[in-house]
């Protein structure tokens, strides 16, 4: 790889051991993928250090101890416990204490300890052509597809990229990767994030690791709908980017989305394909323990929508209604009185984590000394195809997918209300 003097200084240890470790890793990654050089990044969404994984918080503490610092603006991904309100989730205090140690490490690293999968709703909004890195595939696809920034689906190396301000030039940092590989035309009237989540799940499974171009919308999808579309696509496949012509910068139309190459024959997506995703996540169940809204972590607009749905209502006895949002969005909701309306209806507003990311997961292996015991859940109702997949895979209990409006109806009536019951 062709390295600048500044990059060689880091590689050879003249910028300290932390940057040397990071640059050594990035050079090996770049060499593996044929990167000719590094690019300067403008933003990093990085690993939290997760309390449910053995010695994972320590991983971040080790970096802080050798004076690692973020060279660019950095936000922090979702964590394993609500560090303030853990009692509301039934988590042991030991888990919240360990998760708070990660927050201490991030304070030293200089990252904004957002503990969220939607840092954009917390003010981290990279702009067109900004090279960046993200450990969270939903953030990668939102930033590539809605904001026009340039990101791969990264792992831990998002931390190394943040520490050096560099990333090897490969994948979605290159123009030639940012072109459509398949065309989908929506022939259904979609409304709201849950429908877009199902659309994304369907398209993501069909496109694999390509770039789907999605057209046919009756109107420009909202930011919340685009967020849900991306989360769905990234969940069922390996895609890092979608293109909605006219919305995704800089692609004005379908021809531009394919970059001058032949436009492939369109694949229609009708209502049946959307309903099939809802039907895929409709397990047999005896009773519902939790209804969940806010995957990915809810935006301010979604919080207002939930409050309107819940005004004058009351969550049924024996059911918990969880609304997950970043602490920034939670605080905004508190300031505006929205949080009080949600809580008056009996909802729990949880930050830093979500059902699939918290101590409910059965696929993790924490330090036994933490005393983490996943509860037996009889069923979880969600409004996101992403959360549905991971509740089934990680919590390993029955899951039912519906719309946000129907999920609120479910929580207040105690009976599952499917999306197709409208």
């Amino acid at each position, binding site marked *: 790889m062709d390295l600048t003097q500044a990059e060689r200084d880091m590689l050879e240890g003249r910028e300290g051991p932390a940057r040397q470790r990071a640059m050594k*890793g990035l050079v*090996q*990654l770049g*060499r*593996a*993928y044929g990167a000719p050089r590094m690019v300067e990044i403008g933003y990093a969404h990085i690993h939290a250090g997760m309390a449910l*994984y*053995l*010695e*994972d918080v320590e*991983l971040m503490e080790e970096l802080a101890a050798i004076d690692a610092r973020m060279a660019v603006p950095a936000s922090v991904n979702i964590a394993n416990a609500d560090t303030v309100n853990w009692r509301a989730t039934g988590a042991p205090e030991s888990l919240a204490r360990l998760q708070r140690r990660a927050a201490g490490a991030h304070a030293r690293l200089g990252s904004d300890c957002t503990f969220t999968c939607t840092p954009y709703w917390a003010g981290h909004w990279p702009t067109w052509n900004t090279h960046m890195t993200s450990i969270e*595939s939903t953030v990668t696809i939102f930033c590539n597809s809605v904001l026009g920034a340039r990101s*791969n*689906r*990264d*792992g*831990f*190396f998002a931390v190394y990229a943040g520490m050096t301000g560099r990333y090897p030039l490969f*994948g979605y940092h290159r123009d030639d990767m940012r072109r459509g590989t398949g065309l989908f035309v929506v022939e259904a009237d979609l409304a709201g994030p849950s429908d877009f989540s199902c659309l994304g799940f369907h398209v993501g499974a069909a496109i694999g*690791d390509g770039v789907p171009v999605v057209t046919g919308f009756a109107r420009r999808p909202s930011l919340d709908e685009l967020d849900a579309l991306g989360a769905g696509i990234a969940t069922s496949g*390996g895609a890092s980017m979608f293109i909605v012509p006219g919305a995704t910068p800089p692609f004005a139309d379908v021809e531009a989305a394919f970059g001058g190459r032949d436009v492939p024959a369109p694949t229609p997506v009708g209502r049946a394909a959307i309903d099939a995703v809802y039907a895929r996540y409709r397990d047999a169940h005896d009773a519902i323990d939790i209804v969940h809204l806010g995957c990915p972590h809810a935006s301010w607009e979604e919080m207002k929508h939930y409050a309107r749905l819940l005004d004058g209502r009351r969550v049924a006895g024996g059911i918990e209604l969880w609304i997950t949002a970043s602490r920034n969005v939670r605080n905004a909701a508190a300031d505006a009185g929205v949080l009080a309306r949600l809580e008056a209806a009996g909802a729990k507003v949880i930050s830093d984590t979500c059902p699939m990311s918290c101590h409910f997961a059965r696929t993790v*292996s924490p330090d036994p000394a933490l005393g983490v015991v996943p509860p037996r859940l009889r069923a979880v109702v969600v409004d996101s195809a992403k959360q549905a997949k991971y509740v089934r895979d990680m919590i390993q209990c029955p899951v039912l997918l519906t719309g946000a409006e129907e999920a609120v109806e479910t929580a207040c009536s105690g009976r599952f209300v499917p999306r197709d019951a409208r």
Partner: protein
Amino acid sequence: MTRRIALRGIVEGSARGPLLPSREAISFLGDVDIRSGRVVGDLPSVRGRSLAGVVLVMPYTRGSAGAWRFLHQLFRHGNAPAAIVSGTLPDPSVVQGAILSGIPVACDPAEDPWPLLRDGAQAALVVEEDRAVLELDA
């Protein structure tokens, strides 16, 4: 007699251990129990086998954005493979997990290694920059 096979180096380092040839691609997220290091996925040639300390050879890696975390968790639990040889270029998440865990990785063998691989025989992988050698004890 030792046979040497040249490969493309991906992650630097050197390691030695018994060979575990897998006919199927292993996904570190889902196919392996991090607590025991054993393959729990439906992979007929290696199901039930432990990955701890082995020189793991497989045709390709199965992609998942979370693979790095589970490979690193295998390492933190003392159950990681000593080295990984993949027929084709591994996906970036596996590469990141291997670098983080100090596990050497190589791919693209210069000759077909499969006729030479004996389950459990000692092997060593040495990777320097983009050059790698897999040494197989006879």
